[in-house]
């Protein structure tokens, strides 16, 4: 990587994968010799999580100990030396769960990085937030509003507005909705933003000439083929229920270790399970499936 690559070069993800694999090897070695203790999930068949990598987003998970902090620093420095890929410690965050602030600040000082707060963003999703709260959805609401209330949109034709509406729906919300269940209030406030389709704005509401239910029908049935958010949200989440049965990936093993299996299916979470798992097991039992027509 002496010469460097231009921003957006298609080669860079591949080069990065090579580097990320190097990091993976170093981490595995450090764990093997016992210099780093990953986070252990579950009581009986333990799954040990130490690092997650996706493209250029890396997450290192470990128990709270000075040994871990020191070897984390050593690994990252070693990684820099070996592969020549500089780690920007200022852009890195250290976040604690049930760890005192003072300890966290000392660790941040050693690692020369910043202290992050929950929820933090990994791969564009806020981790550690509560999807039942309105604040959690604020960023996505804001991004939709800013896309729709752009001054250029006043000069779009009906067709252009339809295309924009569909693209905003599919690109902005799908990623969130495939992981979190949106509260009804959020869904209705997102859908009320779509009054812009009838040339309405943030303050001005125009006549919606066609009922929103009709607009959401497919084109064959006499609608415009716009997605209905609630049904789409549930279907996207249903994919998790399906993958729970056919997939044996890391996420499944973590869930299995945390909640255990009963017969051939994962146990429903009790009161002390995560919000996400409670939502998913509720969905699995068929809660909230009154999508309507």
């Amino acid at each position: 990587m002496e010469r460097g690559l231009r921003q957006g070069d298609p080669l860079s993800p591949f080069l990065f994968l090579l580097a990320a694999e190097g990091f993976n090897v170093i981490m595995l070695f450090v764990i093997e010799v016992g210099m780093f203790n990953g986070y252990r999930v579950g009581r009986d068949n333990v799954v040990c999580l130490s690092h997650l990598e996706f493209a250029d987003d890396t997450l290192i998970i470990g128990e709270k100990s000075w040994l871990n902090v020191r070897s984390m620093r050593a690994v990252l420095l070693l990684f820099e030396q070996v592969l020549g890929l500089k780690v920007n410690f200022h852009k890195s965050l250290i976040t604690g769960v049930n760890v005192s602030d003072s300890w966290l600040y000392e660790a941040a000082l050693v690692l020369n990085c910043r202290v992050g707060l929950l929820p933090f963003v990994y791969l564009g999703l806020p981790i550690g937030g509560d999807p039942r709260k309105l604040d959690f959805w604020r960023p996505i609401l804001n991004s939709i509003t800013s896309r729709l209330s752009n001054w250029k949109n006043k000069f779009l034709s009906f067709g252009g507005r339809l295309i924009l509406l569909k693209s905003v729906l599919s690109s902005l919300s799908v990623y969130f909705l495939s992981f979190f269940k949106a509260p009804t209030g959020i869904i209705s406030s997102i859908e009320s933003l779509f009054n812009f389709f009838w040339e309405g704005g943030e303050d001005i509401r125009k006549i919606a000439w066609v009922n929103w239910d009709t607009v959401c029908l497919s084109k064959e049935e006499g609608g415009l083929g716009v997605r209905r958010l609630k049904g789409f949200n549930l279907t996207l989440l249903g994919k998790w229920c399906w993958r729970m049965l056919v997939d044996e990936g890391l996420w499944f093993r973590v869930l299995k270790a945390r909640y255990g299996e009963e017969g051939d299916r994962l146990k429903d979470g009790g009161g002390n399970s995560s919000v996400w798992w409670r939502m998913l097991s509720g969905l699995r039992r068929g809660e909230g499936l009154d999508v309507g027509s």
Partner: protein
Amino acid sequence: MLGVSLMIMFVGWLGEPVPLIFGQIIGWGWGVGGGGWVWRRRLLAWKEDSVMECSSLLSNVVLQDASLDRWRWILDPTSGYTVKGTYQYFTKSDTLLETGLFYAAWLKYVPLKVSIFVWRLLRNRLPTKDNLLCRRIPYHDDIICAGGCGCPETTCHLLFRCNFYGGLWHLIYQWIDIDFTPPESVREHLHQFGNMAGLSRFTHSFLKAIWHAGCWVVWKERNNIIFSHTAKDLANLLESVKFLSFA
């Protein structure tokens, strides 16, 4: 409840239960009174009912010894769960009305805005004066058609039956050299015009495009008359129909 690994998944998801069977009960027999039903204690009445229901569900299930167990998604047995298919299942309406007619609004070589215009037209959701009156928009105190014929303006009247704009359609019929008696309603007009007997499907889509262009031109002209008080004559309008439908 049962001594077998039987799961009925997604009962709430799909209208009818989906029995998914695992191997352990092969050969036990699960008919009524079969060896598969062994109870530790006497069943309550409602449990008896659900056992009956269960065994009726299982009555036409045949197990194969050799093949491995796997999950099957009943909406799509080959490729499993897909978000698209499930979403369509959820949102499919029970009443399919005039399927083909609304489909006629979407043509490849017509601009999207015109397609949406036609879609609103077919639903009678254009801001014509009578529609505005229904929604109590106070601006329009007269509901006279812009063509100057003195009749109240409704969608059907404006586009097809007005003395002035109706003339445009006669010119269009002459131009494409057909004999056509226009029916009463908008939908039937599109249906009959767009599916002219004795012509190929390829021609049908062109006829539909001409129909789209005709409506669009009339609507534009009507708006021009109302908002900027400029009017064109029919020959001019016909030219713009030709221009639009060949664009």
